[in-house]
């Protein structure tokens, strides 16, 4: 074959891969940009508009009427356009005489207001408000104007999430759920997978079929029966039905079918001669498992660990059902939801919350990723 024909597929592969990566990254990027934007702007415009200078229309108040000066028989208020939070507007494009038409007059010119007052706003944001009679009112007059707003980013959303103080505790709670709920199924599944692949016992195939069948049971259907079981047992033996052990068991149960299936397929693909000769040399099943199978199955173990870890970390439903919502039990996902407020008014915290909750899964993924692909195709191709 010539080199040309192998270049084309490679080129297409490359392009397709790049396109997919971009497709996947754009939403994440958008979420990230959103998370560092001001919440009111977030509600008003899309994240892709945030890199350019944008025209904003708003109003600011003059100084209080009591600071007016009398010059040549006229009453004058002058100063600098400033927002309530102290931001100074220095790039005024146009202003108007009423809220209806905030871009009526270009900056630097003078407009006559409805009440006869003369208003001048310069592009640097300085203004003069001149009137024949005394300026009255308890608040500053509103000046409506348009200005160019440079791109502005803030860490406020992150502050809001972290500031509430409960995130740290929720982070620990999630760890307390996730680590045992990952370790326990991995342990059990490794034993089970070995038994299914290399031990002879009656009904092995049937039992394995049942495990595979369990893969398709939606976990939602088993929530209530399981919780009832816990609650009955709890009443019998006097423990609280909602708690960490319960949620560990639940995650273990929900994770096991896939774990056993994945690992059994991987272990089955290991060379049988190796195990047989070890058996002939007098190794017990346990020795074969710990000395030979376990070290060889590391990729499968690691890939399932990642799967299970991510699934439990991101889980909301199981934790909501099997754990209380108190401060010592609430998990990260539930806590982020709680930050939304009773009627969901603080939805902008989700943008930064997503990135805070993603930190640990990212670390885990990068730490174990070299096993990931190997484990993912585990058992799918017989080598």
């Amino acid at each position: 074959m010539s080199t040309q024909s192998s270049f084309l597929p490679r080129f297409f592969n490359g392009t397709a891969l790049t396109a997919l990566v971009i497709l996947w990254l754009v939403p994440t990027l958008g979420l990230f940009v959103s998370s560092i934007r001001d919440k009111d702007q977030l509600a008003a415009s899309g994240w892709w508009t945030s890199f350019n200078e944008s025209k904003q229309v708003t109003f600011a108040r003059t100084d209080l009427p009591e600071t007016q000066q009398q010059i040549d028989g006229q009453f004058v208020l002058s100063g600098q356009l400033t927002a309530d939070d102290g931001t100074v507007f220095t790039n005024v494009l146009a202003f108007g005489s009423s809220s209806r038409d905030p871009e009526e007059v270009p900056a630097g010119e003078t407009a006559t207001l409805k009440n006869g007052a003369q208003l001048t706003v310069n592009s640097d944001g300085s203004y003069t408000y001149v009137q024949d009679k005394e300026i009255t009112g308890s608040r500053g007059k509103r000046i409506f104007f348009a200005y160019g707003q440079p791109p502005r980013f803030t860490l406020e959303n992150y502050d809001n999430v972290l500031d509430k103080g409960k995130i740290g505790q929720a982070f620990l709670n999630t760890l307390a759920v996730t680590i045992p709920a990952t370790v326990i199924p991995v342990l059990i599944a490794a034993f089970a997978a070995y038994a299914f692949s290399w031990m002879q016992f009656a009904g092995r195939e049937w039992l394995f079929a049942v495990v595979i069948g369990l893969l398709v049971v939606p976990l939602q259907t088993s929530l209530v029966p399981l919780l009832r079981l816990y609650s009955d047992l709890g009443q019998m033996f006097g423990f609280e039905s909602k708690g960490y052990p319960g949620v560990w068991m639940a995650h273990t149960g929900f994770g096991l079918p896939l774990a056993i299936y994945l690992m059994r397929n991987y272990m089955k693909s290991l060379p049988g001669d190796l195990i047989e000769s070890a058996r002939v040399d007098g190794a017990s099943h346990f020795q074969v498992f710990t000395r030979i199978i376990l070290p060889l199955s590391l990729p499968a173990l690691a890939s399932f660990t990642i799967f299970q870890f991510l699934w439990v970390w991101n889980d909301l439903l199981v934790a909501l059902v099997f754990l209380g919502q108190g401060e010592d039990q609430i998990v990260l996902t539930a806590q982020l939801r709680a930050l939304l407020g009773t009627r969901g008014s603080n939805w902008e915290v989700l943008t930064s919350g997503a990135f805070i909750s993603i930190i640990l899964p990212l670390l885990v993924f990068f730490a174990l990723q070299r096993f990931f692909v190997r484990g993912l195709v585990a058992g799918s191709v017989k080598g």
Partner: protein
Amino acid sequence: MTLRKTLSVAIALATLSGTAAAEGLKFDKADNRFSWDSLSKFEKMDLNGKTIRFDGPWIDGDEANLRTVIAYFEEATGATVEYNGSNDFEQLVLVDMKAGNPPNLAAWPQPGTVSELASQGNLVALSDSVEQAVATNYAAGQSWVDLGTYKGADGKEAMFGLPYNVNLKSLVWYVPENFEEMGYEIPQSMEELIALSDQIVKDGGTPWCIGMESGGATGWVGTDWMEDLMLRTQPPSVYDQWVSNEMPFNDPKVIEVMNTFGQFVLNDDYVDGSSSAVASIFFGDSPKGLFDTPPKCYMHRQASFIPAFFPDQYKETIGTDSDFFYFPSYESKDLGNPVLGGGTLITMMKDSPESQVFMDYLTSPIAHELWMAGQGFLTPHKGAKLEAYSSDTLRKQGEIFLNATTFRFDASDLMPGAIGAGAFWTGMVDFTSGKSAEEVTTDIQKAWDAIK
């Protein structure tokens, strides 16, 4: 090893029992905005070591306020109240209940659910002392008792829900300076309100911001409009018949009310972003149009909680930067000043002596005042001091409650879940997207027939 360390932390956390330490007692007992004497009854009780499980929909800021109410109870009696708040609280409580492990107390925003639970025998009837307290201490007490009274599993009527933390729906929000600028006056009657809307259109503006999107609950904003208009065009008895379906949903009276709502929402000149957009605008974003330059709209009809969705700088300045007026009634119809509200009913799902005491506590003035001093709480409790409200705005709203000639609870919350939290909501979406009132109401009635 770090893993082992984290594990041991995990296990230590797992074995931690009990709840977090009680939040601070925010108010000094010398503060005479509060009726501290109503707390003394509970100080004599000793409930040390007793725990009350309480589930409710309040989270975040609301939860903090509730925890203040709880903290004083815990301090007085020694009991522990384990409050669990969640957005999914309704589902979670039902799951817990089916698993045989319900909380002692639960707060329901929808009386329709309370009625269902009561008839299934899942609720404990409240004590006579609670019923007495509501009947005598709440303004229009009997109507509040009725609100919490449902048929139990034995077919006998009893009070199952204590109304606590109510909100006011019949409010129109506006920006006073925008009104001043254009020379608009606050309308005193529905006729004036419609005239004002027309005037705003004539001046080149848009009178209303309406947004109905709310995830799975999209449409509830429309049902609130309907209910308010129903109370303003029909006597309260018709409203009650409508709620109980004695009067079919597709009765001409209901169709007329829906068409009245149509005068507002289906008029492209009246609503910001045209009527077809109403169903896709998030209800929490729609009031922001009031504060835009130029104003996207001049008025927004929404319940008392809506300032939580205002842009940050306007959240705390109600009364100056924004204000509200009562959604007026028709001058031509002599129906008084009806008030529409919503709120939560606190029910007992698992009886215990300490839960009974806590229910009694919730009827005492102090349990209301402590939350009035926070945010987002109104009460018809006559014994609670108006001074306790944290702002004039809340006080003004509280007074609307105390002075109402007719009070009616949110109809969609009273109807069975399949209607009030289903067909009625989706019907309002259909209506704004062009289906006729006749069709919509007939569809809703069909859905209602199906569950009978």
